[in-house]
């Protein structure tokens, strides 16, 4: 009886998980409708034409999403993972069908083992732990207590960010004196390539006129950009988020300055995603913080020497409650 119930439970879990994956894909189709249609229309592939002809209408998807859109976001980044997991679930169903008798036998033995009266409590704990592990494997649910392991990825698409040519001349770069403070010149010795390099850097602006660099490590978060998408050039954040961010920075600056002075800081367990070290102990009082800015800074690397070509202001973030 228990064997049947367990098998049925997992069968429903797999079916439900497949539905969830299918659902997520449909919702994402709605969230990215115009983009997808545009790409399909501009493609000459027969398959893409076929998809376009059978693509569900926007009103239908809109109606569907009204009921089934939960936590979904428009990004397509993880659809790839969903598809792979779907294939894995199909594979598991086949395994379950082919080895049904063997699975029954193992389950039967396991249940008999669980029912032995001696050491009953630990047997029950182990039994349900194993069932829970299978549940996690099937659903990849992060219950905080446990989750189905870190996802897999590779670096085959990573490329060097140093380019041989630069478009910096066309960009009419500004040469701010404070840019050099956000560059770690020490690390140039490890780069043996010549060329052009650019990246986003961030600065704190004080009422005293000082402009000093900082990084997101100050916020003590693992993925700070999820709450504060400031390092994505096309993103803008509302005033409420700007104020929260400025407030967060001010609190963190005070704490960091205190931390620097303690001996424990040198031996403390690093954050989950540690950022480059910046000593904030000499920074002015956080009360004097006026705003912060994000710039794209352009560098020229030649013979292990670095030249700052200039930069461009990308964002300036200031809480309107802060008076100058």
């Amino acid at each position, binding site marked *: 009886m228990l064997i049947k119930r367990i098998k049925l439970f997992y069968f429903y879990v797999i079916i439900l998980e497949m539905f969830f994956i299918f659902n997520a894909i449909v919702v994402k189709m709605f969230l990215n409708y115009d983009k997808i249609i545009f790409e399909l229309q501009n493609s000459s592939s027969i398959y893409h034409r076929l998809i376009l002809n059978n693509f569900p209408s926007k009103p239908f998807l809109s109606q569907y999403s009204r009921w089934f859109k939960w936590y979904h976001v428009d990004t397509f980044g993880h659809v790839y993972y969903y598809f792979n997991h779907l294939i894995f679930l199909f594979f598991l169903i086949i395994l379950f069908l082919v080895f049904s008798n063997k699975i029954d036998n193992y389950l039967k033995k396991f249940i008999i083992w669980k029912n032995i009266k001696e050491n009953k409590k630990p047997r029950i704990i182990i039994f349900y732990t194993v069932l829970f592990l299978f549940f996690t494997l099937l659903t990849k649910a992060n219950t905080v207590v446990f989750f189905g392991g870190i996802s*897999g990825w590779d670096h085959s698409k990573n*490329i060097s960010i140093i380019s041989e040519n630069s478009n910096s001349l066309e960009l009419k770069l500004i040469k701010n004196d404070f840019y050099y403070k956000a560059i770690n010149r020490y690390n140039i010795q490890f780069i043996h390539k010549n060329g052009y390099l650019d*990246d986003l850097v961030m600065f704190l602006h004080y009422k005293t006129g000082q402009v000093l*660099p900082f990084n997101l490590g100050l916020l003590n978060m693992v993925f700070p950009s999820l709450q504060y998408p400031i390092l994505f050039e096309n993103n803008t954040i509302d005033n409420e988020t700007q104020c929260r961010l400025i407030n967060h920075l001010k609190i963190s600056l005070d704490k960091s300055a205190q931390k620097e002075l303690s001996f424990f800081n040198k031996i*403390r*367990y690093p954050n989950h995603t540690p950022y480059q070290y910046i000593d904030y102990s000499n920074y002015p009082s956080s009360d004097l913080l006026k705003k912060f800015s994000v710039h794209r800074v352009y560098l020229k690397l030649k013979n292990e020497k670095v030249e700052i070509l200039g930069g461009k202001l990308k964002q300036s973030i200031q809480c309107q409650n802060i008076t100058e």
Partner: protein
Amino acid sequence: MSKYNGIRFYKPFGIGAAFHFYLLQAVASLYMIYRLISRDYSHLGLFSAENRLFGRGLFHELFPVPPSYLSSFQFIYEIIPFPSPYIISIFQGIIIISAIFLLLGLFPKIASIVCVAIYIHLLGIMQSIDAEIDGGTILVILFLILSLSPKDYFYKINKFNYKRKQLNWPIFMLFLLVGAFYSLAGLNKIIDVGFGFPFSLDLEKWNEYATEKSMFLTSRNYKPLITSSTLFMNKIFSDFSGLINIITELGFISILWLPRYRFIIITSMIFMHITVFNTHAINFLGSSFILLLCFDWNILIRELNLIYDDNCGFCKKSLKKVKKFDFFNRINLIPSYATEKYPNEMKKTRLDLEMGAVDENNEIFYGADAFEQVFSRVPLFWPIAILMKIPGVIYLARLCYKTIAKNRNKLSNEECEV
């Protein structure tokens, strides 16, 4: 009584010393204290219930309700206000104090339950805001095991008997859950990337990128000294690392039944954590403390009866030398003629050819395998024991042992009567 052939399932209801469980208690509490006094989670209180993302864009968005919303009781913030930075600091403080109680052996069972309950809730808040639980999963596992274990398994401030006999199931649970965690991560690499994972890993491409990124202070703390090194910029090294990683990660669950390979599996994972910290600036270093708990530490407590050929002078001489370094007196030397002192399963005829050993778990070992057990119990010989745990070395050791055993009469100064 079982003969050792390399595969030995870790029995949940085998009886072992309390020593390993005591280590669990001490390491879990120390790591929790170190972790929580190092990190400040009060910033989570700067957000409100409306800011909760629950890792949107990750796997959680599949579910109508994020699993952690239920499992870590995040739904209570529909009724009560989201905690302020001050309340978060109090949560953190209670966890630290409970962990100190657990470390000192003051109401350890209650301390572990309080600790894990609040820690899970705090991690739930963290996950809802930050999409991550900052690498604390296997610490939660460890605390869950402790909180499910019987009260009398813990050491207490007035009761510390590391030789006390108790069931091994909490250690079995540790091996099972940590094993499953790493094996699932290995499986994900196959599902998400494919069987070609080791060869498409391309660490050298990442390392080049990370080195270049390190020019800007906004970047993560990649270590260019390492990322730009010839070794880490090498494609063959990347392929090799990927291969070792996938084998050991997928095979991690085998620590339950392949004791000899625990060493290579665990050290490989520790090496991976160190590498990931230096090249990717993702910190799982603390998991290494828990990985170290996945060795069978009770081997330091379990006594070993070593049965040797009493007619062989060379054997006697060598074993006496080994015994000299057995400071903790874990090895008992028994001559093969004292048949009443060792189990009937051990044949005298085989003992005349090879040395035999029986440990407290009633496992039988012969020849080089018996020596491996001896070396594991004598700290001075640990380097040799470690060497013997490298895959393949045991076959070489068995060959060497057989050659020496055949020629032991020649090696002995005394006349051997065999």
